[in-house]
C-alpha cells in the first residue's frame, strides 16, 4: 500500500490478487484498501483490469492468487450470492436491469425477503410473508425516493430513460443494505445535465452509511466524485491516494492519455 490516508481500519482489503486470461495478466499482484465511509475511485486506462477487479471481488471470477478481506472474512472463493449476503454488492457497466419488470420490482429484488423467497414459509407462514412483503414495499419506495424515481415505480424498467436506468441500477443495490457498493462506471454515457443529477446522489451515498468503490473513466470527474483514488495500470496498482495527488501526477496522466 502506498501513501494515503489510512487512519481508520479498512473495510475491505485486496492483497496480491492475480488473475490471467490465457497469457494476459489482467490483474497482477493487485493490492489496495477501501476505507469505510468514503468513496474510493478506481481509475486507469482501458484494459487496466478495473472491471476484472470487480468481478474478482464479487465472485464472478476466481482469482489465482491473493486474498480479499472484507470485515474479517475472505471473499475469494465465495459465489456471488454469498458475497452479496456478506455485504458487498455491485452494479454492472451494462446495467443488467430486469427490463420487463417494474421499477418497484427491480428494487424489491434488492430488499430482504427471506420468508417470501422460501417455498415452505410461503405456505406455512403466510402472515409473516405478508408482513415482510409490506415492509419490503415501503422500504423500496423509500429507496426510490432517495434516487428520485418514486414517480416511476410502476413503469417497466426498460421504459426509463438511460440516466434513470442508471439510477435504478444503483437504487436496487442500495436497497440490499449491503455496506459496500461497487459502482461500475456510474457516470459513463451521461450528458452534462444528467451528470448534474446523478453525481450528487452518488456523493450522498456515504451520508447513508455506505462505502463506495467506483470505476471511473473520466479523470476530470474523479476529483469531484472520489475521496480516495486507486490508479490501476496493466492489472497493477501504480498509485493510491487523494484525487488531487493522482490527477496532478504527470507520470500517471501520461499513462492515462499517452500511448
Amino acid at each position, binding site marked *: 500500500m502506498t501513501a494515503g490516508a489510512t487512519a481508520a481500519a479498512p473495510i475491505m482489503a485486496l492483497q496480491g490478487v492475480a488473475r490471467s486470461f490465457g497469457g494476459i495478466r489482467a490483474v497482477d499482484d493487485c493490492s489496495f484498501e477501501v476505507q469505510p465511509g468514503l468513496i474510493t475511485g478506481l481509475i486507469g486506462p482501458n484494459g487496466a483490469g478495473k472491471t476484472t477487479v470487480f468481478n474478482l471481488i*464479487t465472485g*464472478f471470477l476466481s482469482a489465482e492468487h491473493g486474498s480479499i478481506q472484507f470485515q474479517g472474512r475472505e471473499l475469494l472463493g465465495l*459465489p*456471488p*450470492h454469498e458475497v*452479496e*449476503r456478506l455485504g458487498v*454488492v*455491485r452494479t*454492472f457497466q451494462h446495467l*443488467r*436491469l*430486469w*427490463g*420487463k*419488470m*417494474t421499477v418497484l*420490482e427491480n428494487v*424489491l*429484488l*434488492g430488499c430482504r*425477503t427471506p*420468508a*417470501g*423467497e*422460501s*417455498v415452505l414459509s*410461503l*405456505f406455512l407462514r403466510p402472515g409473516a*410473508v405478508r408482513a*415482510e*412483503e409490506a415492509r*419490503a414495499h415501503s422500504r423500496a419506495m423509500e429507496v426510490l425516493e432517495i434516487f428520485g424515481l418514486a414517480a416511476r415505480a*410502476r*413503469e*417497466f424498467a426498460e421504459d426509463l430513460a438511460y440516466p434513470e436506468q442508471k439510477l435504478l441500477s444503483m437504487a*436496487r*443495490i442500495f436497497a*440490499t443494505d449491503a455496506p459496500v457498493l461497487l459502482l461500475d462506471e456510474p457516470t459513463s454515457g451521461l450528458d452534462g445535465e444528467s451528470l448534474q443529477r446523478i453525481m450528487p446522489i452518488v456523493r450522498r451515498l456515504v451520508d447513508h452509511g455506505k462505502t463506495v468503490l467506483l470505476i471511473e473513466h473520466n479523470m476530470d470527474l474523479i476529483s469531484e466524485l472520489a475521496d480516495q483514488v486507486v490508479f490501476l495500470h496493466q492489472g497493477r496498482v501504480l498509485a493510491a491516494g487523494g484525487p488531487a495527488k493522482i490527477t496532478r501526477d504527470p507520470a500517471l496522466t501520461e499513462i492515462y492519455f499517452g500511448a
Partner: protein
Amino acid sequence: MTAYLAHFLVMVAIYSILALSLNLLIGFSGIFSLAHAAIYGIGAYASALAALKLGVGFWGGMAIAAAVGALASALVAIPSLRVAGDYYVVASFGLQVVMLAVFMNWTDLTNGHAGLPGIPRPNLLGWSIDQPFEYVFLAGFFALLTWAICRRLTDSAFGRVLQAIRDDEIAAQAMGKNVVLVKIVVACISSALGATAGSLYAHYITYINPSSFALHESIFIATLVILGGSERLTGPVIGAFVLLAIPEALKFLAIPDAVAAPMRQIIYGALLVLFMLVRPEGILGRARARPR
C-alpha cells in the same frame, strides 16, 4: 353424453395440472423441459405400483408419486442446472428417453408394453369415486389446488426471483439470489405437481402402459403451455381446454379413424407454427404491469 362430457372434463383437468406445473418451468423460470411426460409417467407408475404391490390407497399413492417425481427431477436438475443455459433441455430429454425405456423394459416391475391393469379407483372416506362425473370433481379439485399453489408461488417474492432469474441470471446472482438452488427447487415442485397428474390418471383409467408417457406427450404438454400463453397463470389451462377439444370436434366430422389420428397431429403442428408466427405470446397474451 354426460359420461362423455365428464371424461372430457377429467382429461382437461389432468392436462391442466400438467400444463400448469410445466409452466412453472417454461413460463415463469425460462427453463425448457422435455421430460414432463416422463414425470407424468413416473407419477402414474409410482401410484399404480403402490396400489397394486403395496396396497397403498389413492391418497398415499399420490403422495408417493409427488415424492418420486420430485426426486427424479432433482437427480437431473442438480447436475444440469448448475450450468447456466440450455443444458436442462438436453438433460430433460435424456430423462424422458430413459424413463420410457424403464417403463417398457423393466418388465418385472412395470409389466412392459402390456402395462398395469386393475388399478383401484380412489376412495374418499369409504366413498368409492368410480363414476366419471364424480371424478370430474376430484380431478377438478386437484387442478384448482395446483392452480392455487402455482399462483402462490409466482405471485410472491419467490415468483419475483424466478422472473429475475429468467430475465437475467447474472443480475440475480449479483443481487444475492442463490440461482442454482432456486432453479432446482422450482424443478422439483414442477415435477411433484406433474406427478400428481399421473396419479390421477392411473386411478381414473385404472390401466396404464408406456405409450401414454412417450416423448410426443412431452411435446404435447409443452404445446398446451405455449399455445395457451406461458406468461399468464391461466394460459396453460386454456391451452389444455382448446387442444383437447380439437380431437373431440374432429369426431363430429365423419372422418375415418385412420385419417383422424394423423390429422390431429397435423393440426397440432400447424397450430404451433401458426402461433409462433402470429401470436407467440399465446392465446391469453402478455402479462402487463400489475398495479399493486
